């Protein structure tokens, strides 16, 4: 009987390993090669850490190479969107936790953007809202009497943060709402009897009680945000210049525009390392904070 249980596991494990693990190991290998698809005349050869060095070196201080700006933009966008999603998401979850008539309809409406594909949401926002002549933003700005600036070219990072948050916040709301609803009725009742004020009830009782839900929402949310690519491509396309590039976008440009497999590999590995560091920091911080309540 024992060996038969493996038969259930092996097909799934093999597929996942071949599709996700092997290519990742190959990416590690590629990142140490000099390999340019556009230059078949140059033989593929071992290059050591030169691909990494190409991005990491700072040639003439104080001029900081583009790579560091891209890293900074990625961190900034991810951090701001994550913070917005968590804080506003928590407030929305609190709102939706009330037993008001038709609350399910309201929940459904807020959950909606989570299921809308990112390229479609990007296109909708770009044409019907952010456009200075055809969009609501332009019309409202003109109505209020000032000339609308093109947000996509003047504040690309802010636009991306807002769009990322709008698209992924419903997931945070979903998780935190589930947490709030799992709080036992007796606790809510006894707080009411004791006359606990709203602030204490929310931040000293409810918040610590749903910390596990918040942890899962933030960790998975971080992954979703780091992965997000379609929204950038259809709204700012990384521009103007490279001012709204993120690391995944830079990897894409390295493979499909520059055709440089080696350098793209190095960037992809750096992306994975930074993601893991980010998840780790997040996990440690939450663990430390929740230790207070144990």
């Amino acid at each position, binding site marked *: 009987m024992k060996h038969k249980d493996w038969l259930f*596991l092996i097909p799934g494990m093999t597929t996942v390993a071949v599709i996700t693990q092997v*290519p*990742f190991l190959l990416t590690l290998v590629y990142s140490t090669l000099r390999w340019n698809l556009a230059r078949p005349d140059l033989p593929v050869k071992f290059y050591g850490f030169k691909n990494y060095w190409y991005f990491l070196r700072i040639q003439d201080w104080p001029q900081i190479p583009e790579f560091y700006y891209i890293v900074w933009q990625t961190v900034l966008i991810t951090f701001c969107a994550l913070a917005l999603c968590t804080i506003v998401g928590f407030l929305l979850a609190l709102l939706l936790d009330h037993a008001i008539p038709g609350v399910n309809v309201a929940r459904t*409406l807020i959950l909606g953007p989570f299921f809308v594909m990112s*390229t479609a949401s990007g296109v909708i926002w770009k044409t019907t809202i952010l456009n200075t002549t055809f969009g609501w933003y332009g019309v409202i700005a003109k109505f209020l009497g000032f000339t609308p600036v093109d947000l996509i070219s003047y504040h690309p990072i802010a636009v991306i943060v807002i769009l990322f948050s709008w698209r992924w916040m419903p997931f945070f709301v979903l998780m935190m709402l*589930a947490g709030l609803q*799992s709080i036992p009725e007796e606790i809510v009742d006894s707080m009411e009897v004791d006359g606990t004020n709203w602030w204490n009830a929310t931040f000293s009782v409810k918040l610590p009680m749903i910390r596990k839900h918040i942890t*899962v929402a933030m960790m998975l949310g971080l992954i979703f945000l780091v992965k997000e690519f379609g929204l950038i491509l259809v709204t700012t396309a990384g521009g103007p210049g490279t001012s709204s590039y993120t690391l995944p976008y830079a990897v894409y440009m390295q493979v499909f525009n520059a055709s440089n497999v080696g350098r793209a590999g190095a960037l992809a590995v750096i992306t994975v390392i930074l993601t893991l560091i980010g998840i780790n920091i997040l996990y440690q911080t939450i663990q430390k904070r929740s230790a207070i309540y144990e």
Partner: protein
Amino acid sequence: MSDPRTIQEIQRSIRTKKAVRMTVLTIFVFTVAILYFSPVLYMHLSAFKTEYDAVSPSLFFKPTLDTFQKVLGDETMYGYLKNSLFQVFVGTIISLLLGIPAAFALTFGKFKYRTTNNKIYLWFLTTILLPPVAVIIPLYTWFQTVNLIDNRFGLMIIYVGFHVPIVVWMLHSFFSDVPVEILEAAEIDGCSRFQQLTLIAAPLVKTGIIAAGLLVAVFIWNEFFLAFNLTGNEAATLPVYMARFREQQGMFVAQLSAASTVVILPAVIFGWISQKSLVKGLTAGGVKG
């Protein structure tokens, strides 16, 4: 104590206060919810405009179905739609076929070491954390050598690999709710492991399977990065169609809205239907585990 009102009066005033608070809260919650969803709502609305009406933003106009007819009459969209449906159906079913037995074996399987189950389960979870950029380069070069670029089946295999872990993750908690005793009793009665899964365990976690399937279907329907990079014209899916819409069709707000409406509606409806089981699957899978 000097309150001159009778108890009934006090009760009544408390009740009115509560009713007023409830009304205000309801209005506030709905305003927030509608505003949050308004970009999508407005897009649905614009889909019923003529191109001329859609140029300047407005809420009132004479609704027409012309734009829809134009978009649905466009042959190119059907190619993308067919590809999307293929990926969703075949990809989701294969992900489930591979994921369900794996989740089952991880919950009830007996291996040489008792920690094996947990270790493999954690391994599946870590693969969820891997961003697609980490694998796109080798996949792209492989696909080029074996001519799988712009091939439906190539993309489908990748989707299966990326979504099996999600099925395992969601179903693990559902299977954990099934009492071991039932399976043990079945085993004594002569059920093979395979029968235990198909006849007993799987029907018991039906809601979980449906939730996992719907979530995977929505993810595949919306997936853009892999589809965009691994397909050309033949195998491209709807998210790619949306991304290309502006360059191919030009700046037509009403057409764009109608196309987006058609494209996002299935996922939104699917998502809303699966909402409840989705919450259970996501929270049980993540919070307990």
